[in-house]
């Protein structure tokens, strides 16, 4: 593979293919991941090329998928499991939280659990109930798990490589409404660390922090604000556990203002954690309180209302204005 423009879904597909070619212990597991190639076709073609022994269509049982992946990892395999949609992860939540996250520590480090749990997440695709949620905070809250989310094709490719190579369990949130967004992927590049944040747009008046599907919204907001003479910096967090607070701190020390944007409900969300930590680290640099833009304390609404629920350009710009008004 040479440098190509790929949609995010295809970048992940290429990444999985490379991982399987490189390491015979890498397995793909999940519902419909085989002949169908997954409901989003992220595993398209892998069944044909690697066979049912390595691309495993599973019974419709999420706890079973993660629980057996743990057993396979204990046997020396590196399973990459697909949870079909965000809202379906909860039957597996027990296995992820009580077993996958803790087994390494319980064995005093003698065993490793290199399991990647892929979860297409977030809204904006007009889906029915349980198909549009952002439960990342529930996983980031649990010690023993790492939680990441790429926002572009290159990161999707490289972060998946790194997640599979990690000896820790990684919850890999894929921004499903960005699956078809194209970006350049260089398979010869040297990727940065998996858990490092990246400044994707430089600015001097205010920092926007986002990850996954909201990075694009924040970049659009920054471009719109530029037309009004405001210089907005955008930081793509990339990793929700751990969080690269040093990068966020460095940005906020330069701009003096921070707005955190995510789709998940604001209450007890990633924004709360970032606001608290950055307030502690940057108290004397802040010109305004850290503001948050995100979902409401409400179930994810029916599709006809999701545009009201999801943070869009206007809500982000409104928060930017409020911050700058201090």
């Amino acid at each position, binding site marked *: 593979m040479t440098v190509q423009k790929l949609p995010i879904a295809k970048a992940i597909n290429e990444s999985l293919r490379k991982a399987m070619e490189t390491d015979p212990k890498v397995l793909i597991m999940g519902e419909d991941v085989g002949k169908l190639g997954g409901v989003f076709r992220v595993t398209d073609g892998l069944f044909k090329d690697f066979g049912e*022994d390595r691309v495993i269509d*599973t*019974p419709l*049982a999420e*706890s*079973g998928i*993660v*629980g*057996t*992946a*743990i*057993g*396979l*990892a*204990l*046997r*020396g*395999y590196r399973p990459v499991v697909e949870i079909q949609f965000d809202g379906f992860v909860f*039957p597996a939540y*027990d*296995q992820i939280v*009580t*077993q996958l996250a*803790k*087994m*390494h*520590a*319980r*064995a*005093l*480090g*003698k*065993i*490793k*659990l290199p399991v990647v749990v892929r979860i297409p997440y977030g809204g904006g695709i007009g889906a029915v109930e349980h198909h549009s949620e952002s439960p990342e905070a529930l996983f980031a809250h649990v*010690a*023993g798990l*790492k939680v990441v989310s790429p926002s572009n094709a290159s990161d999707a490719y490289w972060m998946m490589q790194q997640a599979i190579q*990690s*000896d*820790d369990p990684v919850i890999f949130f894929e921004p499903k409404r960005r699956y078809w967004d194209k970006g350049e992927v260089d398979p010869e590049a040297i990727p940065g660390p998996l*858990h490092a944040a990246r400044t994707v747009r430089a600015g001097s008046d205010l920092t926007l922090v986002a990850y996954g599907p909201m990075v694009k919204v924040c970049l659009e907001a920054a471009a719109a604000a530029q037309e009004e003479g405001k210089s907005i910096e955008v930081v793509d967090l990339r990793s929700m*556990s*751990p*969080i*690269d*607070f040093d990068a966020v701190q460095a940005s906020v020390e330069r701009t003096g203002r921070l707005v955190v944007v995510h789709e998940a409900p604001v209450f007890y969300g990633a924004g709360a954690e970032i606001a608290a930590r950055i307030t502690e680290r940057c108290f004397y640099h802040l010109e305004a309180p850290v503001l948050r833009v995100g979902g409401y304390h409400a179930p994810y609404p029916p599709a006809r209302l999701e545009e009201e629920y999801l943070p869009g350009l206007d809500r982000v710009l409104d928060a930017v204005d409020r911050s700058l008004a201090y």
Partner: protein
Amino acid sequence: MTVESTAARKPRRSSKRTAGAGARKTAADPELVQLLTPEGERVEHPDYAIDLSAEELRGLYRDMVLTRRFDAEATALQRQGELGLWASLLGQEAAQIGSGRALRDDDYVFPTYREHGVAWCRGVDPTNLLGMFRGVNHGGWDPNSNNFHLYTIVIGSQTLHATGYAMGIAKDGADSAVVAYFGDGASSQGDVAEAFTFSAVYNAPVVFFCQNNQWAISEPTEKQMRVPLYQRAQGFGFPGVRVDGNDVLACLAVTKSALERARRGEGPTLVEAFTYRMGAHTTSDDPTKYRADEEREAWEAKDPILRLRAYLENAGHADAAFFEELESESETLGKRVREAVRAMPDPEPMAIFDNIYADGHALVDEERAQFAAYQASFATESEGGVAAVEGN
């Protein structure tokens, strides 16, 4: 694949004899595989012939006696405040030693938190089992050193790990097998049903060994199931068999047979060891509140150790010197366990941050450093005499 339960077949009378044993009788309950009656008489079962030497029989007896002694010691240590909790296996020695001795070294075991006898068979030092009950760790042994996974407290979770591990064995082309232990209460858990489904679908070499000890804390089996547990396997497409869980020979024979089936690539088996938890669920429990004394007395008459002893004595397989020597060995074990527990050090406070991640985590590093500084601040105060003065 046959889905017929081997246990459902009617036992046939056999004319075979072994040295020293009287004429064999058939088991009273046609559902229950039994090779040794509660009175200690050898009986035959057409599907589970077993022929053990006197030495092997004495070995099983020794395992059960020492396991019971270890368990009694741990219960006493809990009463003395040395352990925070203990889950006794009293009454389940035959189920655990019988199944445990059926295993090969390369097989893998996924236990609950009560498989002290199986751990014994795997060569895990029993004192290693006490760390989590004393509160110095959450497991504490290397599962790969004895192919004995950590104790699992969430009910039924380990049956899926066992299934996945068995799927891995099949992928490797190995002929090892896995045993997943669980209880009658766990059979109500979704994970156990999912493990049955996955193992059947992928034909995984796993033996599900359920110790039906009749009680899930205070809930009797009637609150868990409406059909005999072993029959559930049929609906998943693999055989189920009910074995007398207080009969170490039957447990050994049935588990061995199920493991051989798994090794031949014929998939999972559900073994229901019909037994009884003579003590409490754990030391926090009070069985007098929910079950009758008569019930326990009835089961005491089926004691797994007494029945093997009766057989060993009647058949002339063991003499008084053997039992005396074993008693002495048992005393030594008890002493070793007591001393080991009392000598078990509390972990260093910094251990809170150990082994959370294999590849490290920035937040853990940060909090470890904060905690270290906080701990160090006491040392500084103490050196200056401040803490000592305040302490007075």
